[in-house]
């Protein structure tokens, strides 16, 4: 955490049966339920019970590989978030939505509407589609280099943010005297012209409860880091160790400063893959079991295979090293992994004073210390 009065931020990533490719074959995995609403509601409810700030709902267009050892099925993440929102209060909902083969106009109204149905708890994890397999599902363009994908993503974020502000908060006037439902001077064409697309606006959707839903970017690549530093409210980083995470966080802050932003307004969350057991040996045994079911790739970053106490200690180190403002737990297996975090780890963090005992309420932006911004056209003097 950047300062003692700032609480440690906690997030969890959910998707499929967990990040480990063997997880869907564990007895605890509810494989038939992966396409049903109830298990998703239960997962998010668990995270909310733990007072987590948000759940990141993984998604991409990457199609099933055809390998029967891999589970490639998934539902649309915005759909899941919207289905969960009305029945699970008190937690941010951050679906990943890709921008490479999709329409910026559709993306902006989907997230604004998620904000509406969740009463101000929506976020958007901006993602790109890198692979030829994804490009083939659309057939409209070839897979592009990562640098190009993130240049485009930056344009999409810019256009989306303009569209989110294209309605002023008080545009609907219902003025019976003049017969006008809306004050058209408070609806704005965005006329965004980028290198990759243009969009006229205004949005068809009024300004959302948060005004600007939380924008999350994973700074996995140097190209993504630049975009994250320039546009994101929350930056997810991944690093092989705490020292590297500290460096990564400094990189984000430096890039933000270079882009003219106040780095302290940006929250950096460190990914931590998690597999918990009552003892280190038990946790390692569980990992071996997963690997025997389907061997997984090397860890994408820091991975904790051990006890809840060990994970709490690791988080303490993250805080002391200023490696991040919080962590995103990435359970290797679901739903068991999230249960173990919420029941085993969160109480330890609360006990250590790193997290408030009662979950905070309010909008997702507020959880990250961000006020509801005035629309960019608010208060404009009109002729």
């Amino acid at each position, binding site marked *: 955490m950047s300062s003692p009065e700032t609480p440690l931020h906690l997030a969890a990533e959910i998707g499929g049966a967990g990040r480990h490719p063997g997880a869907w074959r564990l007895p605890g995995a509810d494989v038939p339920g992966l396409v049903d609403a109830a298990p998703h509601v239960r997962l998010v409810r668990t995270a909310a019970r733990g007072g987590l700030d948000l759940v990141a709902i993984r998604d991409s267009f990457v199609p099933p590989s055809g390998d029967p050892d891999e589970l490639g099925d998934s539902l649309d993440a915005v759909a899941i978030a919207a289905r969960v929102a009305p029945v699970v209060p008190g937690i941010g909902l951050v679906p990943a939505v890709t921008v490479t083969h999709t329409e910026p106009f559709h993306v902006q109204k989907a997230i604004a509407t998620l904000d509406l149905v969740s009463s101000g708890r929506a976020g958007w994890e901006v993602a790109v589609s890198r692979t030829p397999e994804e490009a083939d599902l659309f057939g409209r363009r070839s897979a592009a280099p990562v640098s190009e994908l993130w240049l485009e993503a930056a344009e999409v974020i810019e256009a989306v943010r303009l569209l989110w502000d294209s309605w002023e908060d008080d545009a609907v006037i219902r003025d019976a005297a003049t017969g006008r*439902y809306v004050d058209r001077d408070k609806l704005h064409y965005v006329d965004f012209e980028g290198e990759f697309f243009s*969009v006229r606006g205004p949005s068809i959707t009024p300004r959302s409860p948060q005004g600007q839903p939380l924008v999350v970017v994973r700074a996995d690549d140097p190209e993504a880091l630049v975009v994250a530093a320039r546009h994101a409210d929350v930056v997810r980083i991944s690093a092989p160790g705490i020292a590297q995470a500290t460096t990564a966080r400094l990189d984000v802050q430096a890039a933000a400063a270079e882009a003219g932003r106040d780095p302290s307004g940006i929250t950096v969350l460190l990914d931590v893959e998690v597999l918990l057991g009552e003892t280190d040996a038990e946790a390692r045994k569980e990992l071996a079991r997963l690997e025997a079911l389907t061997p997984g790739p090397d860890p994408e970053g820091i991975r904790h295979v051990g006890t809840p106490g060990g994970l709490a200690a690791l988080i303490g180190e993250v805080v002391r090293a200023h490696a991040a403002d919080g962590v995103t737990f990435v359970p290797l297996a679901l739903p068991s992994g999230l249960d173990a975090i919420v029941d085993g780890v969160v109480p330890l963090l609360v006990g250590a004073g790193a997290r408030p005992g009662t979950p905070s309420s309010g909008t997702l932006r507020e959880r990250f210390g961000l006020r509801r911004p005035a629309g960019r056209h608010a208060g404009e003097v009109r002729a």
Partner: protein
Amino acid sequence: MSRKQVHLAAHFPGVNNTTVWSDPASGSQTDFASFVHFAQASERGLFDFVFLAEGLRLREHRGRIHDLDVVGRPDTLTVLNALAAVTERVGLAGTINTTFNEPYELARQFASLDHLSGGRSAWNLVTSSDAFTGENFRRGGFLKPEQRYERAGEMLEAAKALWLSRAPEVGSEAPVVGYASSQFSFRGRFSVPRSPQGHPVLIQSGDSEQGREFGAATADAIFSRHSTVEAGQEFYRNMKDRLPRYGRVDTDLTILPAATFVLGDTPADAAENAERIRHEQVSPQTAIAFLEQVWGRDLSAYDPDGPLPDVDPDPENVNITRGRVRHERDTAKLAREWRELAGSKNLSIRELIVETTARHSFVGTPKQVAEQIDEAVQADASDGFILIPHLVPTGMDAFVDRVIPELQDRGSYRTEYTGPTLRDHLALPYPT
């Protein structure tokens, strides 16, 4: 033989002057609570589905955003997914444009909704080709008007190929689907197992010859405009007669005209309410705007309570209103008809517009309205109606509480849902 059953759906009142916003009972058009109230009332009424319209660009009138009607809508699919959380049985139908979407993404979104709602999704396919809406999208106005149905047909064929490529089991084989046509060329495996309904219920609303044929070939339900008995019967027969060409039978296609209603405790009350609502729907400013659509020119200087303009319509300027369904009729002819009507009945501009645009389909006591609806259905003017109330969010409440029991007493309406899915409500076959 048991009596023919009435099918009912509820259209969330939207972005046109049918929706009265000036009434004190009119709540937010966009708050989620309004959608929840509306959907839960519809479910209480054992409706087949709730229906959301869509427009992908704000309407303009004389080059400026039209400000007299309700403006603004949330995202259709996101609202429907959220409504799935607060309802259990009622179907969830959304209008989605076939021009500004791509098959893989849309098929995945609808399959997701169908799973997350336990088989309650429906897709109202609309086509468009206008460069006006296209300005909000990457490809702009890329589609020629004559290719609208070509794209819609290929979109649906492609989506079906994806939906039906999978077995229902998670982790089941996902074969490579390849699709190539004039509009699309893609290949890959579909990431969503077959959804509870196989695919969403398909609704079609185009009324052109092409639209009707597309509906007969592909749709599960038709959202028509022919709500009077005579026009309804003609359309109904016309549509059902097209089905054998596609190896389909009458019960494979449900015909649901749009309909409005006004209730009252007595026939006189109802008539009085109808008159009041018609005037709320046509404010003085709305009357002028309507006239401008037909005249194709600025008529803001005219008094809505005065006589029709003496100037003639400008035939070159029929696109004065953009982003909405246009009058497809010959505007010069329409103007002549309106002049004659106004002259013979001594109507002001506003009275004329009230007279010609704001008719209600069903007006009466709850018992009378039930009778009118039932008789239309029994006479094969339709299989039921998509009801468009004039108020958000309470517009369906009185109908549900007072008309539905009358329909049930007539033996023409279900007393409980018989199955979990929308296909069950509509007694439609499951796709194979």
